[in-house]
């Protein structure tokens, strides 16, 4: 082992640099107007965590694309409930992936119910369309056409052929004037009869869409008129029975629709992709149906093409919300269709994804639901904090009792490591949304011991060097050179464990692993930039060099017989040791 220069290089400068870094972190953490406490996980403040795992059907593998689509559907559902700070995240990828939904606060059974239901993609003929906010008109007309649609929020210049149709002004706001094409007409199905019937099938979901009804009756139409899709009332999708009529909003809340039961279900889509139009009309989405789907689609489009707006629109609903409602220009036979409109590339791709995965070839299975009441969360947090304080106290007492003066250095190092860890937790919570879980708290407490261990390793090395007969100052330096290597190797193994755990595990194990990794790094930083220079400085003070018992380095306390280490002593102790080895 090469020991180039055992003396600490500029201990004061190192300490000053570390001081500045810690100060900067501290100021950043406690910057006025910001919450200076770590973000707490659900198990510490109460809330519901649901883990969903995709179960692919027919043995197909789950692609990341499908997963992303599933997440966006779930996020849409959760956001619909308007719970602040809800989170939907994924862990892992492909077959090992899972979706984690975290909803803080008290339990909301409706959210739970909505999570695992498969999102349904349906094609539904449009009966009426309006702008998203309720029109101030009071005629629940029994006709499927809405009385007076408000102006369409996003103008649809090109592909909305009859904007001035007498009876039912077109309102296809969210579609960029999308249109379905390719096909021939074939009219056969009855137009939805506006016969009001019993409203027994009417389901009100707290005023949120979709409102479902067995028949297109007066109540449904009133509900449709009352429906408020304005964006401040978050819109939420939900399972919509394909056999029922629904009144619902577009995903962006810009428009609302009264829709027929599903004419074609999403499962009949064979493929969908976004591409540039052959005719040079910008982005479009190409669709292919299965043979059954092709037949159904041909039937419906043929009939829709005959209708006047808005009833010539074919709404694509995902989870009950209208993703797009293209107009049908002609009956589409042959099983492939193109949705054109003024799409951007992203819009076209997203629509294609919805069409491809909207009906979720992956079924989501609720793997685990964990509801922690806020009181239990508080109890757990308290217990964690008490355990931490008690653990720290025990370690401090032991270190000071055993190492005396050096023990105080260790305590200062521990406190510093604790402060840095706290700052990092607050900052990571603020910047990256990292939440501290109970397992994380436990990890931090366990880390007290691991961090203190590095000081023990260093101090024992110093003592070894003194036993070798070194002067205090030389012992502090030489001990470090040797402890450093041990410390780095041991901490590297700890870090390795943390990284492997983090990437190969889920849920609470992750929180623990993250904490372990974080504290291991902090440990190395503190040992190198704080403990080492501090010891180096202290070893130069006259108090430590007196070898008084309270320094923790008094030679007689170490068992070195002649109190002053001289070369001769060394010789004897070394030879005694060697002799023992031989015997």
């Amino acid at each position: 082992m090469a020991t180039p220069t055992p003396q600490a290089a500029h201990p004061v400068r190192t300490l000053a640099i570390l001081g500045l870094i810690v100060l900067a972190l501290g100021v950043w953490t406690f910057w006025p107007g910001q919450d200076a406490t770590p973000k707490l996980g659900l198990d510490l403040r109460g809330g519901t965590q649901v883990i969903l795992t995709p179960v692919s059907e027919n043995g197909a593998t789950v692609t990341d694309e499908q997963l992303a689509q599933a997440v966006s559907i779930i996020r849409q559902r959760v956001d619909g409930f308007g719970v602040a700070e809800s989170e939907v995240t994924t862990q892992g990828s492909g077959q090992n992936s899972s979706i984690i939904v975290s909803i803080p606060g008290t339990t909301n059974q409706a959210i739970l119910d909505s999570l695992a239901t498969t999102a349904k993609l349906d094609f539904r003929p449009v009966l009426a369309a309006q702008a998203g906010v309720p029109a101030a008109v009071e005629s629940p007309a029994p006709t499927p056409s809405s009385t007076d649609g408000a102006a369409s929020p996003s103008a649809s210049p090109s592909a909305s052929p009859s904007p001035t149709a007498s009876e039912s002004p077109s309102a296809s706001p969210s579609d960029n004037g999308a249109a379905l094409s390719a096909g021939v007409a074939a009219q056969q199905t009855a137009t939805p009869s506006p016969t009001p019937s019993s409203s027994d099938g009417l389901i009100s979901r707290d005023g949120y869409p979709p409102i479902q009804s067995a028949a297109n009756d007066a109540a449904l139409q009133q509900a449709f008129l009352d429906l408020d899709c304005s964006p401040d009332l978050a819109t939420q999708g939900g399972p919509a029975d394909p056999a029922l009529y629904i009144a619902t909003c577009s995903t962006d809340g810009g428009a609302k629709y009264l829709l027929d039961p599903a004419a074609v279900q999403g499962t009949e889509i064979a493929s969908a992709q976004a591409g540039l139009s052959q005719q040079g009309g910008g982005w479009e989405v190409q669709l292919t149906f299965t043979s059954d789907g092709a037949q159904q689609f041909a039937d419906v489009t043929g009939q829709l093409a005959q209708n006047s707006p808005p009833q010539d629109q074919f709404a694509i609903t995902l989870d009950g919300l209208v993703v797009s409602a293209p107009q049908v220009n002609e009956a589409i036979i042959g099983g492939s269709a193109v949705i054109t409109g003024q799409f951007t590339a992203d819009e076209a791709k997203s629509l294609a994804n919805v069409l491809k995965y909207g009906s979720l070839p992956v079924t989501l299975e609720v793997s685990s639901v964990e509801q922690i009441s806020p009181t239990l969360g508080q109890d757990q947090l308290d217990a964690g904090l008490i355990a931490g304080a008690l653990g720290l106290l025990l370690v401090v007492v032991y270190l000071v009792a055993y190492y005396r003066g050096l023990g105080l250095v260790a305590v200062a190092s521990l406190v510093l490591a604790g402060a840095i860890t706290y700052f990092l937790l607050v900052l990571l919570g603020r910047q990256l949304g990292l939440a501290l879980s109970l397992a994380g708290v436990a990890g931090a407490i366990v880390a007290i011991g691991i961090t203190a261990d590095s000081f023990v390793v260093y101090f024992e090395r110093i003592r070894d060097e003194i036993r070798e007969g070194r002067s205090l100052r030389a012992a502090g330096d030489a001990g470090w050179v040797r402890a450093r290597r041990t410390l780095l190797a041991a901490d590297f193994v700890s870090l390795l464990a943390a990284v492997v755990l983090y990437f190969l595990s889920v849920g609470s194990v992750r929180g623990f692993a993250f904490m372990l990794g974080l504290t291991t790094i902090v440990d190395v930083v503190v040992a190198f930039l704080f403990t080492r220079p501090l010891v180096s400085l202290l070893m130069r003070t006259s108090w430590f060099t007196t070898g008084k018992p309270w320094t923790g380095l008094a030679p007689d306390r170490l068992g070195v017989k002649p109190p002053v280490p001289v070369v001769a002593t060394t010789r004897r102790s070394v030879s005694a040791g060697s002799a023992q080895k031989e015997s």
Partner: protein
Amino acid sequence: MSRLGALAHNLYSGEVSVDFVGKRRRWYAISAVFLLLALGGLLGRDLNLGIEFKGGSEFTVPTSASVEDGRAAVEAAGVPVGDPIVTQVGTDRLRIQTPALTPDQAAQVTASLSENLGVPAEDIGVTLVGPSWGAEITQRALQGLIVFIVLVVVFLSFYFEWRLAIAAIVALIHDVLITVGIYALTGFEVTPATVIGVLTILGFSLYDTVVVFDKVKENTRGITSGNRATYSDAANLALNQTLVRSINTSVVALLPIAAILVVGVGLLGAGTLKDLALALFIGTAAGTYSSIFIATPVACQLQERRPEYQALAKRVSARRSGADTSGKPVSKRAQSRGGTAVLEAEAAVDTDQDPGDADEGESTSGVAPTGPRQQPKRNQTRSQRKKR
């Protein structure tokens, strides 16, 4: 304390020496007993897996109601709850476990509990776990374990050498087996927190082992060029020298874990904190034992098979049988080594104070190293000499 300091010194110098390596059969036997018990426990009794592994539902109700009341309240819900396990946790909490329920059924149970026990529904904690989920986390934990072991073997082989890496892993598996076995024997519930604990033991057990091995590595460097100590002798000295350190690191590591255990059991009765701390406590204790009594003896056994160490052992035993076997080790040493060791030790020590003095000791340059402690400085002396 000061007596402990004196002991530490004596252990360090070798005046007091515990024969860890030589008496390895004894330690192996002790471990074998534990391992057999552990394996017997694992084979004889299944692990008491928590609902997170086998699937199921758990309701935590903050109430001082009796277990019977709790059971009645669950059964009143009118959903298939099988034979619910109702336990009192702490003083004011009931924990009710049932087979896996759907969210709807769970909501019914929650409502029934709330109504019958007079607890607000939102204060009731609910955990639902699907049956396949446990299999998945188990699989991932095993994956993690294997990946970690492979990486550690690679790292330790690189940092020490493969024989030491194998010895470290043997000790590691020893710790994990014993911990799992104790769980099987006692019937403590195994939860994800327990798994975290066991996985953490991996890192911890190795931390201790790395500290000891580092000293072994230092003590045995260049040892083959001498004839005074076998690999096992040097390793045993290293163990003795690091004994106090091992004890201290273990005590310091165990103190916070003990704090979690006490607070976790005392305040919460059960849950993440207790599960985690219990596994950690058992594992860390086993880890301390294994790094001293298992890892190093196994490492010595492996190393002693190498030709160079076998040759060394022969030379050492030849020298010992040739020398006066009775007593007075110091004088014996003085005879056999002459003044060279002293000279070298002096040179080494002087190096620290004033490297310039090293030249005075130059007569020692070609001599075999006196012992492990002087190794680094010997190198330094040489390199300094080269510079001149």
